[in-house]
């Protein structure tokens, strides 16, 4: 048994040595400028909305809706995934990436029907995000009540 385990460990080392690593510096620079740009656009939209007399929170909410719309439109037009290939986390982490994670399975699974295809698969990635985000917010709310 030990012999097999040794062989496996030795092989894992070999694999580590042979497998090419991602270029972290290059990837980070790309994620930084694309992600930063999406946020700056978000700021611009927020400011424009605010200039119509909305409060800061309202403007931020409307900006979110617009960004979600843009993320979904770019996904439908087959553009978002190409930006994502370049930018990595730069397009995954902003709210547009959340929108992309909902619309991409919705489109992919429409052949399986609108109920179990589009309706169910839409939450393939967004579902867990909403589940754990909501649970955390409830816990934070309860703790806040007691302290």
């Amino acid at each position, binding site marked *: 048994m030990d012999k097999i385990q040794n062989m496996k460990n030795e092989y894992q080392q070999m694999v580590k040595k042979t497998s090419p690593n991602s270029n972290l510096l290059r990837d*980070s620079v790309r*994620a*930084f*400028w694309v*992600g*930063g*740009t*999406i*946020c*700056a656009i*978000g*700021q*611009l939209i*927020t*400011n424009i909305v605010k200039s119509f007399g909305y409060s800061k929170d309202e403007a*931020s*909410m409307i900006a*979110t*809706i617009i*960004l*979600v*719309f843009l993320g*979904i*439109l770019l*996904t439908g*037009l*087959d553009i978002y*995934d190409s930006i994502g290939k370049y*930018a990595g*986390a*730069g397009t*995954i*982490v*902003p*709210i547009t*990436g*959340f*929108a992309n*994670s*909902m*619309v991409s399975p*919705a*489109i*992919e699974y*429409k052949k399986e029907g609108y109920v179990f295809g*589009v309706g169910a698969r*839409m939450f*393939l990635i967004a579902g*867990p*995000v909403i589940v*754990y*985000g*909501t649970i*955390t*917010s*409830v816990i*934070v709310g*309860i703790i*806040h*009540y007691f302290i």
Partner: protein
Amino acid sequence: MEYVRAFVVGGAICIIGQILIDKTNLMSGRILVMFVVLGAVLHGIGLYEPIVEFGGAGATVPLPGFGYSLAKGAIQEVEKVGLRGAFTGGLKATAAGITAAILFAFIASLIFNPKAKD
């Protein structure tokens, strides 16, 4: 200046995500979950509000901002109506974003088809 701060803060959060992707082989879904939870927890202990004050959209547009909105909503509602607010506040505050995503994603599924890659 406001735009530069949004750019830098948003970009920095994305770099953290990129490091997680490259170094840990985490799938994007897990990173999104981690970031939402992180944003909510940081707001719970009072650390995310200052980041939002400084970075504006740079802090609210990335996914931790979504967690921040959930937690902020829950806390505000608790202060308004008591304990039951913990159950309503989070989703109430983020309803616009979630509803928009559901609606637009559905409409997109009516219009668009997935394209092969090369």
